[in-house]
């Protein structure tokens, strides 16, 4: 191989290594890109940080409609807790305020910091499910063996499209103690 050709090969190889390195960066860039794209209105996604506390609004109660709200409670694998909702199901009129209590108990002998993450099905309904108060807004600290009753106050925005009659709201508790 002549020296010129050798140099040419190394030069091209260097460029291609740069491309590969850039693609490694692109993989990471997909993380913020994904977040940005998911903010687009037509993407039906419920992001935990998008479900924020909303100010109390006076809606006109739509007595003609009745929405069934189902509650699911789950524990992430390594979370040693007892966790359930006081009701499995609730029928509400859009625009009406309701409070549901959730019960959680730390089963360990140590302090536990846990976070509840909400998930909606169908995902699109998350936009119309407005929470005034929720234990899921922040991390919850449990003392050893401590049990808590935690309220969640919400209203269904009457603009909820007519197609939806049932909303399933699921909470999963994650043990975040170690991440602290």
């Amino acid at each position, binding site marked *: 191989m002549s020296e010129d050709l050798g140099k040419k090969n190394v030069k091209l190889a260097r460029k291609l290594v740069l491309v590969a390195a850039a693609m*490694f960066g692109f993989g990471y860039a*997909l993380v913020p890109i994904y977040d940005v794209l998911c903010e687009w209105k037509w993407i039906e996604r419920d992001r935990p940080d998008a479900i924020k506390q909303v100010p109390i609004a006076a809606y006109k109660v739509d007595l003609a409609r009745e929405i069934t709200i189902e509650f699911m409670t789950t524990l992430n694998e390594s979370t040693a807790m007892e966790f359930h909702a006081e009701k499995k199901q609730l029928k509400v009129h859009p625009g009406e305020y309701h409070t549901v209590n959730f019960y959680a108990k730390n089963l360990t002998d140590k302090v536990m910091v846990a976070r509840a993450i909400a998930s909606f099905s169908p995902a699109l309904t998350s936009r119309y499910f407005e929470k005034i108060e929720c234990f899921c807004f922040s991390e919850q600290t449990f003392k050893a063996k401590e049990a808590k009753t935690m309220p969640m106050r919400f209203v269904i925005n009457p603009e909820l499209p007519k197609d939806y009659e049932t909303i399933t709201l699921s909470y999963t508790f994650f043990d975040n103690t170690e991440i602290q």
Partner: protein
Amino acid sequence: MSAVVSEHDDHHADDHHDHGPAKGLLRWIITTNHKDIGTLYLLFALAMFFVGGAMAMVIRAELFEPGLQFVDPAFFNSMTTMHALVMVFGAVMPAFVGLANWQIPLMIGAADMALPRMNNMSFWMLVAGVLLLASTLFMEGGAPNGGWTLYPPLVLQPITVGKAMPFAVFSVHLLGISSIMGAINIIATIFNMRAKSMKMMDMPLFVWTWLITAFLLIAVMPVFAGAVTMLLTDKFFHTSFFNAAGGGDPVLYQHIFWFFGHPEVYIMILPTFGVASTIIPVFARKPLFGYASMVWATGSIAFLSFIVWAHHMFTVGMPIAGELYFMYATMIIAVPTGVKVFNWTATMWKGAMTFETPMLFSIAFVVLFTMGGFTGLMMSIAPTDFQYHDTYFIVAHFHYTLVPASVFILMAAGYFWLPKWTGHMYNEKIGQLHFWLSVISVNILFFPQHFLGLAGMPRRIPDYAVQFADWNMISSVGGFIFGISQLLFLYIVIDTIKGGTGEKVSDEVWEDAAQHSLEWTLPSPLPYHTWTTPPTSVPTEHVLDAH
């Protein structure tokens, strides 16, 4: 290497500065010769084909009857995960890199690969990566068993991964670096080392398909490396890329993974297309039909592979607009792929065909790959995909596109080029026996899995409802026949290297092969060094319509 001058059996080459390989085992460790490295890659891939195959036998044995017979569920899941990883990263991809190492310099009139030392390094890094992966089999908690896609949160849960997860991740890093180095080498070789007389549109299709594949590798392997690195930091450094508790999203992983994963399936199939386009014209004794359209179809498939990834995750909960986009974009891939299938058929049309083993495997590839393509089209239809998703239907689909396609074509390539490489003819009778056993058993193995999938049998389970028993038993019987038949291939490879039928093959090996590609103008067996002087003219009959 230049210090190692030996009076070697290299009598063909008149170059006085020519030298042969180093003596003894060290030759294989320090070699920078493209033929030696090609051989290493191919033999390593063959060994891994049997390792991955043995895992498949464990899977089929367990599924022979409902209930748990031989292995516990966690080990069963390790087997499905490791079978996939070993076959994809240890067998199919390295086998094609091996073929590229042997064939690309020969086909473009280059003396060697552009970066021979890097070539050696990428092979040994592959070995290190696969050994690291294999080591997880012996670890506490067993090998990774969350599926080859390594989806979180499953793969992050301590109960399912034991100690293996970081090893699997580092193994992926090594395999990725190895493939990227291989790809860089191939691109540099094709761009810089090509004989002056060969224009881009003169290049044999095998070279074209590998060039495009190499770009795919450089574009997506780093993304996969990034995704598994995120898994690693989520697991050990408290980042929350995919951890919902920290504001992450497991679905994000699926997007990143399949951004790599979909081009990855074309990384395994495009070189397959290249080999098929090389073999079929030789045995049809006609130039390849539609050379230019083949090149453009390959490029189009490669481009489309980047914009269809989410069809692997239709059921994840996507907006309707997303489902529709990914559905239609996926369907478009059938167009360039159809162009290829029609071109192969048209190449055979009215050709003076003979049916030696490489041609038989190639024809079986065209037929059976098309079937795999059709089931792919079925699954591209988003609403129906909800029925097929994660059932044995998808298992049948991708095995049809990988086993009787990529693997059959790799076998075909072995039969086609081994006589050229070794100078010995393989045993045609045993070759044909191998073909017929393989083509019949592969259908007994995978065809019933379509029915199982449509009836609702999920994939990745060690036990199943009794209504699936009959087809599973038939599938397993096919699997055992297929597995045992492959020992014939192993026998033929060893036998051919040792001397084969004893028949001395001509330089062309196959009738008029030299009209199709440059390597057949060289002596058989190939001398250790070839094209030290580049060829002055290149065959252009295969590209008639391109000029």
